[in-house]
């Protein structure tokens, strides 16, 4: 996908994505940890707030509890008259502004054997203290909760809070304490001492709990009834359970259950009157069984973390942007020389070796690469220069060799028929030069009107030395062949000349002959050459292998002999060099004398041009494309009359 993108892009992408991942992980971790820290903090804070409120409330409640408890203690251990009792109760009501009423309610007939009810009650009414006796047929207080529950439970009891109609709409709660008498060593229940206590102060304590903007505290009674709450409509009108019922909120119901079961915990809460999310800590008041709840608005708590995280996120994004710019700048500075290098190398590849390569200032990888390219460019230049020179030199040598070859070939007679005015004989010759300059040659000329001198030769070796040696030999032959000279004499003379200062031991094989065009007589001499074939109309073909001597140029005292044969009309001679018999096929097998012999036997008669061309075709077929290793030279003479 990114194969065609530049290094800068790939680098930016990989570094940025990695950094972004790391950043997101850090951000998430930071959020989790700070959230946890804040939650722990809130838990501690709310716990402190709640217990602080609980302690304050309990301290005050305890101080109120002491008053009826002291009365109960007094009643247990002292004897008292009716007036003493009423005075006692009156004093309690008069001296405690928070106590709105108090009574000492006796068991039936416990105070006065004649009276079923005895409960003198003092209470405040619009600032006045009033007195009445409780009890009667319409108010059998023995069966009321404030009397019966502490009696049955055998311990003091706070009543459910209530509104006191007479006390000016003040929330009150009655604290009922059972009192006893020791009669004949036994503890006998005598009645209940009560104090009706205003809970005004409770409201003040709980509402003093203020948490950020919308946090608050509240208190519920044993039944779940709201005793204090910022929303005054709830007070004494609703319970946690009625709210839970109305909202169909099981969690709220469960929390309510736990609160009135005197548990304490830190829980999330989906609001009490709205759906706002809160965290709440609740704790019970030990004696009354009431419960204090402290609510922390979650969004306000988390707003700090949210703000922190938003800031971290913004800083991170800014950082990533700066990083991106940096990467682009750095990778740009890295790839700029590379891009220039790419352009330069493309130009080099296109053949322009004079391209300026960017000079690298640094010694980093790019610098080293540039230096390598510089070195490569120079090496290429040098190599190409050398190659050009070598090629030029080679071409020069080759063209010179070709010139040598052409010169060499041009000194051989090539015009056929060479003597159009002579009809006593036919002569034809062909040379197929090998690729490398060789040393084959042939020649023929009249020494006088009757005598035709002919020769074929092959210089040892190849190359320019062989070509020069061949030229020298051919020239010498022509120079030494005078009229009335015998073939052996020609070879002897040429040999002596060739042997002079022949340090390289080059030699040449020559077969030469002289045809008497009048008689058909042929005298010949062979200096180490392949013997020619004699075509005889009457006797078929045979090898003319007489008068053989040493190749020329070796020993200056070498001697040669002359043989003779007579050609009748239609007879002929077939001369060749070893290029013929040593022509090779694709398996490097040579053509051989035997094959040549068989081939010539099939020719019936000799017709120089036809026979030579056929032989060349035969050799071509035999070698079937294999490169020719040596010159192939054939010459043929046919005597006519």
């Amino acid at each position, binding site marked *: 996908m990114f194969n065609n993108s530049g290094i800068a892009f790939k680098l930016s992408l990989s570094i940025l994505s990695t950094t972004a991942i790391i950043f997101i992980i850090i951000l998430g971790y930071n959020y989790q940890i700070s959230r946890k820290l804040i939650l722990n903090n809130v838990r501690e804070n709310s716990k402190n707030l709640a217990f602080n409120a609980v302690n304050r409330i309990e301290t005050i409640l305890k101080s109120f509890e002491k008053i009826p408890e002291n009365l109960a203690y007094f009643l247990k251990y002292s004897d008292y008259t009716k007036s003493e009792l009423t005075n006692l109760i009156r004093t309690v009501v008069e001296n405690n502004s928070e106590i709105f009423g108090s009574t000492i309610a006796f068991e039936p007939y416990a105070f006065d054997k004649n009276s079923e009810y005895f409960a003198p009650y003092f209470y405040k009414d619009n600032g006045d203290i009033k007195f009445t006796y409780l009890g009667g047929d319409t108010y059998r207080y023995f069966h009321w909760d404030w009397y019966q529950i502490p009696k049955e439970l055998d311990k003091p009891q706070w009543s459910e809070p209530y509104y006191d109609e007479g006390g000016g709409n003040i929330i009150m709660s009655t604290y009922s304490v059972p009192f006893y008498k020791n009669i004949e060593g036994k503890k006998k229940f005598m009645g209940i001492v009560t104090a009706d206590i205003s809970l005004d102060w409770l409201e003040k304590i709980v509402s003093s709990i203020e948490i950020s903007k919308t946090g608050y505290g509240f208190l519920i009674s044993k039944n779940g009834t709201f005793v204090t709450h910022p929303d005054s409509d709830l007070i004494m009108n609703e319970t946690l359970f009625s709210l839970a019922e109305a909202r169909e909120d099981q969690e709220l119901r469960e929390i309510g259950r736990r609160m009135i079961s005197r548990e304490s915990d830190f829980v999330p809460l989906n609001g009490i009157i709205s759906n706002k999310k809160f965290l709440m800590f609740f704790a019970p008041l030990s004696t009354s069984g009431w419960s204090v709840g402290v609510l922390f608005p979650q969004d306000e708590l988390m707003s700090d973390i949210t703000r922190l995280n938003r800031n971290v996120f913004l800083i991170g994004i800014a950082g990533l942007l700066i990083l991106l710019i940096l990467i682009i700048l750095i990778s740009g500075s890295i790839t700029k020389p590379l891009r220039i290098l790419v352009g330069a190398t493309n130009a080099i590849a296109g053949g322009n070796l004079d391209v300026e390569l960017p000079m690298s200032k640094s010694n980093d990888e790019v610098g080293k690469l540039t230096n390598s390219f510089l070195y490569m460019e120079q090496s290429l230049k040098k190599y190409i220069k050398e190659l050009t020179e070598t090629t030029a030199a080679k071409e020069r040598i080759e063209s010179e060799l070709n010139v040598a070859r052409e010169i060499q070939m041009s000194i051989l007679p090539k015009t056929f028929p060479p003597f159009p005015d002579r009809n006593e004989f036919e002569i034809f010759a062909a040379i197929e030069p090998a690729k*490398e300059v060789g040393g084959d040659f042939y020649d023929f000329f009249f020494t006088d009107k009757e005598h035709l001198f002919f020769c074929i030769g*092959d*210089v*040892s*070796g*190849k190359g320019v030395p062989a070509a020069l040696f061949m030229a020298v030999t051919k020239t010498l032959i022509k120079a030494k062949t005078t009229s009335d000279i015998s073939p052996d004499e020609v070879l002897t003379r040429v040999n002596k000349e060739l042997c002079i200062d022949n340090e*390289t*031991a*080059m*030699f040449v*094989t020559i077969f030469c002959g002289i045809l008497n065009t009048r008689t058909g007589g042929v005298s010949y001499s062979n*200096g*180490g*050459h*392949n*013997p020619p074939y004699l075509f005889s109309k009457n006797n078929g073909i045979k090898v003319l292998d007489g008068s*053989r*001597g*040493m*190749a020329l140029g*070796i*020993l200056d005292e*070498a001697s040669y002999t002359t043989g003779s044969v007579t050609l009748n009309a239609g007879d002929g001679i077939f001369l060749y060099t*070893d290029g013929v018999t*040593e022509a090779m096929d694709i398996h490097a097998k*040579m053509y051989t004398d035997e094959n040549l012999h068989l081939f010539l036997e099939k020719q019936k008669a000799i017709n120089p041009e036809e026979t030579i061309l056929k032989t060349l075709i035969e050799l071509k077929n035999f070698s079937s494309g294999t490169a020719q*290793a*040596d010159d192939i030279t054939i010459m043929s003479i046919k005597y006519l009359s």
Partner: protein
Amino acid sequence: MEIAENRNENIVILSLVGRLDSNTSDDLEIRILSRIDEGERKFIIDCSYLDYISSSGLRVLLLGAKKLNNIGGHILLSSLQAQIKEVFECAGFTSLFKMFNSKQEAINYLNNPH
């Protein structure tokens, strides 16, 4: 062509394997001339495995023979196959080289001065 070189006391024995032609004769020329320069004077060219010899090959042998003749050395040929012998005969070289049927005969000849 391969040139295997052995010695028998002061005799250099060069065994030629394959074809001695214009492509390979330079190797042999260099070998013989460098040995002569090093002071070797007795050579046997073992032709048991020589399949072909061209005029270039003949020239090299001739060159060696000429150089050695001038300084009193010898170059002998041994174990020539029929077609090789024929080339020598054709070029009239048989009178220029002493030829032996085996290497040992050539060694014996060199070890018994005449």
